[in-house]
């Protein structure tokens, strides 16, 4: 299937793999933000996941252990953030920025000596004859397990947030920490957990980058992916399935502009690269206009410090 020299099937297959790191990170950040905490340190957590995952995979020869280590490193970074913002009540915006700075530096120190090393390969899942189905095969049955896991995690997050008691508590904490506290929920503990999950997901996304997508370790290799993840959460108006859509849109536009170039079109690259951000703003405006007098799309306590005495 080809439109204007662009192979739609390849484009679709490509953007699924290309979007996986930001999809994972954005899903994690969504959970953190749902609990009312804005963690701008996604980039820092991702790159720590990338280096830790890489180092562990190289040391053990097992990509799976690499992914576990990546998630752990991301979660550790998030815990540091949680300590500062939840216990020491530091400002979330400033702490998040500091976390990114810290993560970029620390990952580079840890990663010295891993440059130019190749990680053990992550195999693609074998779907047998399914992969040979035209159109559907290459799009849906040609990936490694993390791609499927990322979509599954979106579903899990959606389900938990929507249908479980844990999800209810999380949302309650995010909407009004004072009310949640009055109801006897442990606001700080809930936020620690949400942040930890967010960090683990960002770390997983980072590990995917260094183990599968690139695959190599170099300083600063996330190159802004963490910031895109933040944008996607906003674009998605804090709904899990829309995160999937947003991640594929951001990934898709990059993939599309490269494919258009490959097909010989001279396109205004920078204007096109702006598009996802402009679309995000438009979506945000529409949502806030719709919710003007009703429920806000963003968790009401987002970015605010909580202390039990206040």
């Amino acid at each position: 299937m080809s439109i204007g020299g662009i192979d739609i099937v390849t484009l679709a297959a490509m953007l699924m793999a290309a979007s996986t790191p930001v999809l994972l990170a954005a899903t994690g950040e969504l959970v953190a933000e749902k609990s009312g905490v804005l963690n701008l340190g996604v980039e820092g957590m991702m790159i720590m996941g990338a280096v830790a995952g890489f180092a562990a995979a190289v040391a053990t020869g097992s990509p799976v252990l690499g992914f576990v280590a990546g998630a752990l490193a991301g979660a550790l970074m998030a815990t540091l953030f949680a300590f500062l913002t939840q216990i020491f009540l530091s400002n979330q915006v400033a702490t998040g920025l500091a976390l990114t700075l810290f993560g970029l530096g620390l990952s580079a120190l840890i990663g010295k000596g891993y440059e130019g090393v190749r990680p053990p390969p992550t195999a693609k899942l074998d779907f047998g004859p399914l992969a040979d189905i035209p159109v559907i095969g290459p799009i849906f049955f040609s990936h490694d397990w993390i791609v499927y896991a990322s979509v599954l995690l979106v579903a899990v997050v959606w389900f938990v947030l929507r249908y479980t008691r844990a999800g209810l508590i999380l949302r309650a904490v995010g909407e009004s920490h004072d009310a949640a506290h009055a109801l006897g929920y442990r606001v700080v503990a809930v936020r620690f957990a949400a942040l930890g999950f967010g960090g683990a997901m960002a770390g997983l996304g980072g590990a995917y980058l260094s183990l599968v997508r690139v695959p190599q370790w170099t300083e600063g290799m996330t190159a802004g992916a963490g910031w895109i993840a933040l944008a996607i959460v906003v674009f998605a108006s804090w709904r899990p399935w829309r995160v999937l859509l947003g991640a594929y849109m951001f990934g898709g536009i990059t993939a599309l502009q490269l494919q258009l170039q490959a097909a010989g079109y001279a396109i205004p690259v920078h204007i096109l690269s702006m598009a996802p951000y402009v679309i995000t703003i438009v979506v945000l405006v529409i949502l806030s206009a719709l919710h003007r007098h009703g429920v806000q799309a963003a968790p009401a306590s987002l970015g605010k410090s909580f202390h039990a005495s206040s």
Partner: protein
Amino acid sequence: MITLIRRPNPSKFWTYATPIVAVIATMFAGGLLFAMLGKHPVEAIRVIFWEPLFGANASYFRGQLLVKAGPLILIAAGLAVGFRAGIWNIGAEGQYIMGALASAWLALHVYPAESHWLFPAMIVLGALGGLLWAMIPALLKVWFGTSEILVSLMLVYVAENLLAYMAFGPLKNPEGFGFPGSRNLQSYPAAHNADLIAGTGLHWGVVTAFVAVIATYILMHRHITGFRIRVAGEAPRAARFAGVIPARLVVFCLGLAGAFAGLAGMFEVSGPSGQITDSFNVGYGFTAIIVAFLGRLHPIGILLAGLLMALTYIGGDMAQLMLGLPSAAIQVFQGMLLFFLLGFDVLTNFRVRLGRRARA
């Protein structure tokens, strides 16, 4: 367990003591890090904090401290006003870019003008560029209630792409052999923001930063608007009774921060940087957010925090050069400094009590 008890009033003692405690803690933690990297810890700390100020050739580096701190202080001073009111503009980086683009566009458009009016006109356009860019999140918030945090952040990326587009396209130096980047304004006398006293690093942007510190101090502490802003931030409901109109406050705060950031961009592109390139912005807009918080959103605090931040950059380069520390170690060190400063700040507003925590 540790329990925090809110103080009725912020502690005067800890307000001044926490930054010092934090810097000392960073020196220990940083020293440990440097020792792990096989460097002499005391020497490394000395190089970072002492060498730029009092070491050999300190006269040059003190000037560079101003060059580096100027934009940080100018942007942070504007941001802090909004932060005090609970208005979270985190898109200063974009406003900085737009100020630079607008003023550079004017200068390059009339190239090679010799008019004395060009530089003042560039200042106006720089402020306007930042201000208008900041009006997007401001008006969207006023009209639709859209979060200014997110819109201003998204607009950073739009501005970055616009910058790259201009550097590769319309503003490209026609005599640059096809390389991206504009003409250098440093060799364009009417548009050049030169050192006021050669070799000191003191240019109009630094002067403006100092003026901004004084102006925001008067605004916040000696003027009714400042009172309203503080009330709006601390007790939004009371603010309405005090006659604060939220919409005006949003427009004012974002406009002020945008104009300051735009000015910083203008002075940078016409002075130290000189050129519109796709790598023109180096994160001043984001670092300024940290500076604003390190300075506790107080103009004088911001002045000091901006200088401290600049010191770690310049001292960091020195440590690379003199001790062979990797630049990544400096980044980690800066990160630790910020963590400690932000974390210890809790002591200002809370009393720490050791003991069993009542069920929260």
